[in-house]
């Protein structure tokens, strides 16, 4: 496994053996939230390790953009299990507490979640007694400025910018910043090894909290 620290105490706290907690039950509960069908996002096309020709580069750019748009769609559609399934078994969703941090390991983070912790978060928001989720709540993500920063044989790093508007009860909030996706090419298509979320307003005062991934 690629996750660096395997001790129980390493953050994210549950990095023991990722994705053991993908019980069918959570699938079912995700389905109740409207995630009835599987999504085919990030389906890889055959390609050399580096796009040699401009046409290949364009194709890769297009593919990656489609992946990011589809991911935004899953979040806005509250298709939590489908979103989690975009991550590799050792994948991590990370929102640093400080833009200077280069790892979640041993420093405070706003989110530092492997698939197991993501499963906890999903199950929480789907639980009927998640009081804070009762009011009207929805988000709208816009993703742009997509740049492929690194191309390796089976992995690429993609930088993009996002703007997320959230409505909760009668309050609108805005969150914006940059994503860094480390994507791995798998048989199922592109999968997220690391999604780093540097929110421009990460260090501002939070009026209320963040309940799900940005």
């Amino acid at each position, binding site marked *: 496994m690629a996750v660096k620290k395997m001790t129980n*105490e390493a*953050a*994210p*706290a549950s990095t023991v053996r990722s994705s053991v907690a993908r019980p069918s039950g959570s699938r079912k509960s995700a389905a109740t939230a409207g995630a009835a069908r599987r999504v085919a996002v990030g389906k890889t096309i055959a390609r050399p390790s580096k796009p040699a020709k401009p046409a290949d580069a364009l194709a890769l750019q297009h593919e990656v953009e489609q992946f990011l748009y589809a991911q935004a769609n899953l979040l806005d559609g509250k298709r939590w299990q489908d979103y989690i399934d975009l991550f590799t078994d050792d994948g991590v969703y990370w929102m640093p507490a400080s833009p200077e941090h280069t790892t979640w390991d*041993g420093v405070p983070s706003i989110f530092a979640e492997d698939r*197991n912790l993501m499963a906890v978060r999903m199950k929480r928001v789907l639980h009927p*007694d998640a*009081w*804070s989720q009762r009011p009207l709540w929805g988000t709208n993500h816009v993703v742009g400025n997509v740049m492929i920063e690194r191309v390796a044989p089976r992995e690429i790093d993609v930088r993009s910018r996002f703007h997320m508007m959230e409505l909760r009860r009668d309050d609108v909030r805005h969150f914006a910043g940059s994503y860094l996706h480390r994507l791995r090419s798998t048989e199922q298509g592109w999968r997220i090894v690391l999604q780093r979320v540097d929110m421009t307003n990460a260090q501002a*005062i939070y009026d209320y909290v963040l309940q799900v991934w940005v």
Partner: protein
Amino acid sequence: MQKAHIPNLAQLVEPDRVRREVYTDPDIFDLEMARIHERVWVYCGHASQVPNPGDYCTVQVGRQPMVMVRATDGAVHVLYNRCPHRGAMLCGDRHGNTGAFFRCSYHAWTFHHDGSLRSIPMMESGYAGTRWGRDNPDCQVRSAARVQNYRGFVFASLAEDGPALEAFLGPAKIAFDDMCDRAPEGEVEVVPNCFRVVQNSNWKIFLENQLDALHPSVTHQSTGRAAHDVELEIERHTGKAPLAYHMLSAFSTVTIDKWDNFRTLSYPNGHCILTGYMGLRPRDSDTLEYERVLAEACGEKRKEEILTTDIHHVLLYPGLSVQSPLQQLRAVRPLSVDRTLTEIWHFRLKGAPEPIYRRALAYYNLVNSPATMINADDLENFWKCQQGLSSQGGDWVSFHRHHGSDIARDDAVESAPGRGTSEAPMRNQMKAWAQFMGAER
């Protein structure tokens, strides 16, 4: 200044219930700031936040913008963040280093770290013949009336009179002893990060929730269940789930009736303790290694005393909630009658092995970060309380639970055995409130 329409304060608080205006009246809020937060000892920060000369951080004490600064001689001062000239704040950032002296960005007046005047541009010519001058005390940056430090935790009081810090804290100072004693070196240092979350509710609603043993299994049911599901799943696959899952799942596995087994202790000045340990003394190799290091530092007997201290967390009235076994604290900064800022800090046990820090860090991230899966539902309830209390649907807040059965011993009031969900801590806080406000019957 008490305004005419404020109802008779003495009629607002009864031993077992409180009028709703106490949470909703902006004039009462102003009075609270003047009589409580701007008089009693308020937590400013930890000395390790300002390790070097010139390091400062800004902090709100009541309604007053203050700056905590490390002087060249090592002393920590707490000053009003205000230039005596035209009133500009001296420090506009949350923290930083001011250099060898403060320099006002408006007209370049400079001040030593203790607030005394250093220089004014063209002072001799500019102020000759005026009644302004170096010897005028109004030329200095005003200092908090009193600043005291207990084991590195710096408090300020904006009132000249009143008990010393340790006397004010009384037995509740165990919050800091418990935290520091767990460190083999006997002290903690701040983890340089502050999570800041606003609650749209009165500051007292947060404090009352801190020792409310009835709420966790209700409010946090969803997160407790979710964490427990995943915890069991991990255990099926690997045999052992990380402690972080237990910290979350306990909110549902400790069912509502079991919370009666906890104890609450209420002390003078509104301070209270909730006992009960969150399973933080497992027998894994990291814990055993930590215990070995601690025993080496202070001896086996003392180590046992330290590690068997039975504290879940300590509430230091009027604005600090300390979870000493996890080295975290939440400082409460009232912003207005219905808005409250919490500043959430984590500390490192000096001399303890790294895994012990990481274990507590997992809790800091999961429970206390702005993406918390726990406080999300608390804040929802606080907001609902604030809305409900603003209505005319009732006049009183009820603190009757187990009233009359609390046991008074020496200085403390203890919830009766098997009655840990007693609302004694809330009654104790309102008793202190009435004393500070001059609202005693």
